[in-house]
């Protein structure tokens, strides 16, 4: 097991992503950060905090549960649902930034795009991830990446966040040292 990002590095990566989101969207007024449960929600909250610190502006924040849209539902027992909460303004004509912890096959993001399709018509949909570990199975890319980490398919990337796991840390498990 090896640690690839520590707490300070996670904080720096998120601060940079916050700057990039603001730069790309010319501020935060039309931006909605939508976290994908579980850890994407926490990362979205932290990005909102960073944006508050940088621009002194409250960015719209929500959560998007994609379980009902997954393409692998029939391969295992039903997964528990988590809440979907959208800002009252809705997502129409906004810049929606999907936020997740680890970007892997791209299937979660595909499901999220389907879910968004049911909820409205954003102006653009962007993707922010803390870790991009490669091995895409679909033609999907991220707009904002905390860190690219080359991995083997047999390894697993574990993102720990203090709100959920008690500490901030990104680890790779199953790597032969």
């Amino acid at each position: 097991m090896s640690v690839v990002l520590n707490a300070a590095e996670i904080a720096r990566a998120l601060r940079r992503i916050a700057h990039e989101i603001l730069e790309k969207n010319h501020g935060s007024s039309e931006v909605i950060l939508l976290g994908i449960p579980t850890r994407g929600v926490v990362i979205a909250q932290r990005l909102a905090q960073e944006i508050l610190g940088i621009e002194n502006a409250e960015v719209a924040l929500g959560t998007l549960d994609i379980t009902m849209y997954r393409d692998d539902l029939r391969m295992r027992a039903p997964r528990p649902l988590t809440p979907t909460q959208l800002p009252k303004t809705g997502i129409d004509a906004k810049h929606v930034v999907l936020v997740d912890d680890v970007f892997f096959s791209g299937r979660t993001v595909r499901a999220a795009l389907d879910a968004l399709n049911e909820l409205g018509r954003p102006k653009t949909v962007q993707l922010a991830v803390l870790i991009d570990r490669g091995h895409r199975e679909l033609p999907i890319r991220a707009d904002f990446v905390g860190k690219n980490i080359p991995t083997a398919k047999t390894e697993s990337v574990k993102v720990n966040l203090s709100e959920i796991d008690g500490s901030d840390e990104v680890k790779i498990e199953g790597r032969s040292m």
Partner: protein
Amino acid sequence: MRDLLSINDLTKDDALEILDTAVHLSDLSDSSSRKFPTLRGRTVVNLFFEDSTRTRISFEAAAKRLSADVINFSAKGSSVSKGESLKDTALTLQAMGADAVIIRHGSSGAPAQLARKRWIDGAVINAGDGTHEHPTQALLDAFTIRRHLRKDLGDLAGLKIAVVGDVLHSRVARSNVLLLQKLGAAVVLVAPPTLLPVGVEHWGAQVSFAIDEVIAECDAVMMLRVQKERMEDLFFPSEREYARNFGLNAARIAAMKESAIVMHPGPMNRGLEITAEGADSKRSVIVEQVANGVSVRMAVLYLLIGGATSRDLAVQIGEQS
């Protein structure tokens, strides 16, 4: 969980999982998305040997919102009226590839028979069998009580709920007593002695013969329909006397706790077990119960056939060998 036949098959955690799932689905349906691709390609059969409006429509709406294909089968006008047995009907549905069969039957135990004999691979959901159980009605009632009286979405500990009326013939009452007690609520059954089943003292619920003695201390009052179609004998002297002694009228509504709610599984006999004032009062959540029924049934369908089912696993094993 493979089938939903009786509340007894559920642990407290199973029941809370269904209710929590229903909360999420209800919130999602309130926002803009009304339809999910989750059960696309699954076939759900409504197998109704007894008349029903709201339960059948509710299951149909739930299945369709999850994109399942729905086949409605009612005994009237089908080969059942030509004398086909439950087994042969089930084998026909099996041949059509039903992933879930929602069955209502006049005989207690018919859904259990269907599930136990495994004439079909699909999940069996009891939508009311004789005077035995109606588990999804109890779940939607618990969902409604929780939404109004337990905003923190915990269990129902500390609540007192009256179930009033024809307990003898009511599958709704039996399922509700089992579920509400499982979730920690105290239940009081209120009925004339002739409308209480033999052995009711073993249900674990308080029994009262006078609604006015208990109504002031209850958090929810659940009125049961007087089931005229099941009453071959005379269970009470007259409808007027029943309405006066057990009906929910304006005076009794006024005697209830500030926060208490009025429930009825429908269809109502207005003027018999509940007056128009009772049915239409601000405390009444009767119409909301119908809407909640769709969310709860979506949750049950999702949890039973939304993930890998025994049919899927059989196919996967077949592919591997």
